[in-house]
C-alpha cells in the first residue's frame, strides 16, 4: 500500500526528468553533437568520482536551501520568486561579516557571519511579505523587482563601497580563515547542514501547530481566517523564514565555496529553487534529490562542453523542460499518478 502511494507520488517527477533529458538529447543531436557522449560526460563528472561528488554536493547545498525557501512559500500559498535576491543579499552580508569582523574565534565568527546572511535574506523576504500583507501587492511582482534591485545594489556595494583594494572586478576582499566553513572528509559540510535543515522544515510542517497554521492559510485563506489564524502574520512568517533560509544558502556559498562575495557568482540559484521545489512536490524532503541532480548538472556542464562540444546552456533548457513536464498535467494523467499542481494565490487583489 505504502509502495503504491510512493510510486503514485514520485512517478511523475521521475518520468518528467527522463522526458526532459530525451528532448534535450534530440536538441543536442540536431546541433550535430553526440547526446550519449554528452550525457555520459555529464554524469561521470558529476557522480563518477569522489571529487566529482564533493563538487556536486557543494553545488547542491545552496540549491537545497533555495528549494526549501520556495517550498515554504508554496505551502503557505505564496509564490516566492525572490529567492534569487534573498540568496544574493545573504551571500553578500555573510561575506562582509566574514572579512570585516576581526579577532573572533571560528566557533563564534562563523555562526555570526552565517547569521548575517540569514538576517539580511529574511529582511528582503520580509519587505515582499509586508507589501503583500499590508498593501495586497502580489509577491510575484515585488519579489522579481526586488531581485533586480538587489542585483544592482550588491554590484554597487562590492564594486565601490566594499571593494577589495586594488581590484578592478566587483568583489569583496577574501573572508578570514575564522569564517571559512571547514570540509568534513573533503566533503562540503554545508551540505549536511542543509539536509538537517530540510528535515527540520519537514518536521515543522508535519508535527507542529505553526506549520499547520501556515499550511491552512495556504490551502484556504478564508477558512484559516474563520478559524482565527492571522493570514497577515502567516504571510510575514513564510516570507521571512523563506528569505532567511535563502540567505543562509547564499552565506554558505560565500563562506564555504567562493570565499568572498562576487556578484557574477550565485546567478540562477534562486530560479533553480523553483524547479527543485516543484520537482519535490512542495515537500521539504523532496527537494534533496532534485537539488543533487541539478547541482551535479550545473557542476559538470563546463566539463561536458569540453568533452562533447555541447553548450553548457543545455542544462538551462533541460531544467526548463523538467519544470514544464512536472507541472503540466498530461504526464500525470498518462501515468495515472497524482498531479503536481500547486495551489497559489492567483490574481492581484488578495
Amino acid at each position, binding site marked *: 500500500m505504502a509502495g503504491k502511494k510512493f510510486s503514485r507520488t514520485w512517478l511523475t517527477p521521475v518520468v518528467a526528468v527522463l522526458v526532459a533529458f530525451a528532448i534535450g538529447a534530440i536538441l543536442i543531436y540536431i546541433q550535430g553533437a553526440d547526446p550519449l557522449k554528452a550525457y555520459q560526460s555529464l554524469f561521470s563528472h558529476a557522480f563518477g568520482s569522489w571529487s566529482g561528488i564533493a563538487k556536486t554536493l557543494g553545488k547542491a547545498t545552496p540549491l537545497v536551501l533555495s528549494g526549501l525557501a520556495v517550498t515554504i512559500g508554496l505551502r503557505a500559498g505564496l509564490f516566492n520568486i525572490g529567492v534569487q535576491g534573498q540568496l544574493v543579499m545573504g551571500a553578500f552580508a555573510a561575506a562582509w561579516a566574514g572579512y570585516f569582523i576581526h579577532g573572533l574565534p571560528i566557533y563564534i565568527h562563523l555562526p555570526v557571519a552565517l547569521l548575517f546572511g540569514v538576517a539580511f535574506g529574511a529582511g528582503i523576504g520580509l519587505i515582499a511579505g509586508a507589501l503583500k500583507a499590508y498593501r495586497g501587492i502580489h509577491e510575484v*511582482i515585488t519579489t522579481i523587482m526586488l531581485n533586480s*534591485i538587489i542585483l544592482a545594489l550588491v554590484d*554597487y556595494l562590492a564594486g565601490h563601497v566594499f571593494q577589495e583594494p586594488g581590484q578592478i572586478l566587483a568583489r569583496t576582499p577574501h573572508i578570514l580563515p575564522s569564517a571559512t566553513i571547514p570540509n568534513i572528509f573533503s566533503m562540503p559540510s554545508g551540505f549536511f547542514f542543509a539536509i538537517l535543515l530540510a528535515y527540520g522544515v519537514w518536521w515543522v510542517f508535519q508535527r507542529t501547530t505553526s506549520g499547520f497554521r501556515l499550511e491552512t492559510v495556504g490551502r484556504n485563506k478564508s477558512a484559516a481566517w474563520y478559524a482565527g489564524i492571522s493570514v497577515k502574520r502567516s504571510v510575514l512568517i513564510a516570507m521571512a523564514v523563506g528569505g532567511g533560509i535563502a540567505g543562509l544558502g547564499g552565506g554558505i556559498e560565500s563562506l564555504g565555496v567562493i570565499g568572498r562575495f562576487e556578484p557574477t557568482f550565485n546567478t540562477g540559484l534562486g530560479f533553480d529553487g523553483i524547479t527543485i521545489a516543484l520537482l519535490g512536490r512542495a515537500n521539504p524532503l523532496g527537494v534533496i534529490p532534485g537539488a543533487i541532480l541539478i547541482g551535479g548538472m550545473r557542476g559538470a556542464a563546463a566539463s561536458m562542453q569540453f568533452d562533447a562540444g555541447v553548450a553548457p546552456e543545455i542544462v538551462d533548457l533541460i531544467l526548463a523542460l523538467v519544470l514544464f513536464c512536472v507541472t503540466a498535467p498530461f504526464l500525470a494523467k498518462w501515468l495515472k499518478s497524482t498531479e503536481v499542481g500547486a495551489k*497559489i494565490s492567483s490574481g492581484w487583489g488578495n
Partner: protein
Amino acid sequence: MKKLLSFKWLLTLLLVVITGYFYSKDGVITSSVVSTALIFGLPLALAAMVGIMCERTGIVNIGIEGTLLFSAFVGFFTASATDSDFYGVVAAVIAGTASGVLLAFMSISWKMDQIIAGTIINILATGLTSFLYKQGHTAPTTSEIDIPWLSKIPFFGQVLFMHGPIVYIGLVLIFVLYVALFHTSWGLRSRAVGEHPGSADTAGVSVFKLRYLNVSIAGAVGGLAGAYLSLELVGSWDRGFTAGKGFTALALMIFGRWNPMGALAAAMFFGLTQAVTNQLMFSQIVKIPDQFVNMLPYILTIVVLAISAGKVRPPAAEGQQYEKEQA
C-alpha cells in the same frame, strides 16, 4: 472618483506647464527628452496591453517577460538570416502568438495554475534562447520614417512623427484596443467573460473560444513589443536583455486600472523618468552611480503598486478556472 479625476487633470496640466517652460528654455533638448520618453515607454505600454487583453478575459499572464525575450530573439535572428527587418518583425509576431497559444493551452485546456503557467513560459524562453544564442550576429534594423508635413511641426513633429515604424503601429494598436475593448461587442463579451464567465456563457458567449482568441492575440501584441526591442530600440539581442520589462508592464496595467489609456499614460510617465534621468546624467548635472539609475524603474514599479493597490479592482474572474456547468 471625481477627486481622482481632478487630480489626473491637475497632473497633466502640471506636466504640460513644466514641458512648456523647459521648451522655452531649450527647445532642442526638451523635444528630444520627450521623444525619448515615448521611445522608452512604448515597449512597456505594448507589454501592458498584453496583460490587459489577457486579464480582461480572466487569464493572468505573468509570462509577458518570456514572450518579449523569445519573440525578440526569433525576430532578431530571422532578420539576421533573411537580411530583412520586415521578415524579422513578422517572425517575432508569430513567435509571440505561439507563446500566447501555449499559455492559453496550459491555463485554459490543462487548467494549470496560471501563475505557474506564466512562470513556465518565462523559464522556457530563457532556457531555449540562451541555449540557441550565437554571438556575433548582426541584423538589419527598422529605419526611421518621418511623416511628411506632420514631422515639420515644432516640438510635436519630433516627439510624435519622427520614429521607426513599430512606434506608429504600436500607438495605433493601443488606441484601437481601447476603442475595441469599450465600444464593440467583442470588447463587451471579453469583459463579461473576465468578470462573470457563467453569465457570459448563459448569454451564449463561448468562454473557452474567446479566452483562447484573446490570449493568442495578446501574444501577437507581445511579439510586436519584442520585435520593437530587438529590431528598433536596441538593434541587437542579448541574454536577459528584456530586464524585467514584462513585469513592470504588469504593474503599469494595474496602475492604469486595466484600461489601455491608463496603462499608456503610466508607461509614458515611466519613459519620461528614464529619459530625464538619462539627460541629467548625460549633461552631468547630477552624478548618480549607474547601478542606482538601473534600479529606478524597479523601485518605481513597487512604489506605483504600493500607491495603487487596494484602490483598484481587478477583473472578478481573474485567475480562476472556468468549468462549464453540466445540465
